[in-house]
């Protein structure tokens, strides 16, 4: 076998998908494109609505609260809701994947940077997503505990609330930092492995 035969072998190859009708492909990509746009729009609405709902509910509680410390704690949680919505819109969903109309070296570099950005976002979840509302909750918890102890009441409910809140936050932390970031790390490593030693 010589090089001409290799070229002929290549051109003869008709893998699966080679005979897909262009009209059928257009139908598929139109559907997928619409679905993707809907998903992105829905995610943005969900993120903003979630943050604003937290802000509205806890803002109302803070406004109605007569105890100053409780009011501050709930105010911190309400502000966290707004902060998270803004942060997600600015750094989360708005992250655009690299344009595939670039040469391989440039594209791989941009893709790797995009993966890095996503990993950093997930690894910092504990600071920008979890810490602000948790601090607010700790203020509310500390004040409740103090008042119950002063009144000689059981503090079990306050501790149970803190345990539940901490468990939920820990689960979000683990899912993002351990599972989410590891998933993207693996993608980045695979990309690096596939392009190992490549440079223009």
């Amino acid at each position, binding site marked *: 076998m*010589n*090089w001409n035969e290799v070229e002929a072998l*290549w*051109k003869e190859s008709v893998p699966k998908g080679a005979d897909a009708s*262009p009209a059928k492909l257009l139908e598929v990509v139109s559907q997928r494109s619409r679905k993707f746009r809907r998903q992105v729009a829905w995610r943005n609405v969900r993120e903003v609505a979630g943050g604003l709902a937290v802000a509205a509910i806890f803002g109302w509680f803070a406004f109605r609260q007569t105890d100053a410390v409780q009011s501050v704690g709930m105010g911190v949680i309400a502000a966290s809701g707004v902060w998270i919505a803004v942060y997600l819109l600015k750094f989360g969903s708005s992250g655009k994947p690299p344009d*595939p*109309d670039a040469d*391989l070296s440039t*594209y791989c570099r941009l893709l790797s940077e995009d993966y890095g950005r996503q990993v950093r976002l997930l690894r910092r979840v504990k600071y920008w997503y979890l810490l602000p509302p948790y601090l607010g909750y700790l203020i509310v918890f500390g004040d409740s505990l103090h008042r119950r102890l002063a009144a000689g009441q059981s503090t079990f409910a306050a501790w149970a609330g803190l345990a539940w809140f901490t468990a939920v936050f820990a689960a979000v932390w683990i899912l993002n930092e351990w599972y989410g970031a590891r998933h993207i790390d693996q993608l980045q490593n695979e990309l690096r492995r596939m392009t190992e030693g490549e440079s223009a």
Partner: protein
Amino acid sequence: MNDTVEGIVVPSAETARRETFLRLMAEYRRPIARLAAAYLHDAQDQEDLVQEIALALWQAVPRFRGDSSERTWLYRIAHNTAITAAAKIRRRGKVETTPEEPPELPSAAEGHEENLIQAQRREWLLEAIRQMPAMDRQILTLHLEGLSHREIQEITGLSEAAIATRLSRQRDRLGAKHPEYEGNRT
């Protein structure tokens, strides 16, 4: 739907996009399918990749300004989409279903049917290409699709000299893996 400008009917942006997409798919669906086969072993994955590439092209068509030729633009998008999809699929561990080495190649002397031998030779070639590093794979598949060194340069960003060196190295590698392969163009 078309628009009318000063009494002349011109295609709307959406109509033009659809027409461009259909023309590109009619012209390049086979090269795109071969490219998918050069990245992924599983037939279903290959079909999914063809759809991924089609989607990427659909999204990119409105951005095409003619700074490069349509062919080089299309292959850049196709290869970059393929490498992203292949990394995702490999991460899922699907690569383990592919053999470590290209399959054994039967020789014509063994008396197999000619078409069976050709099919196995094609699979051998694809498997050998799949095992190449991404840049080498891209250069070789583009070369096999008939693109010039200059066009490959536009797509990969490598110099023409580097492309020639890599192609020569790939030919040698193919030869080392294939007892029947003679390497040089006849």
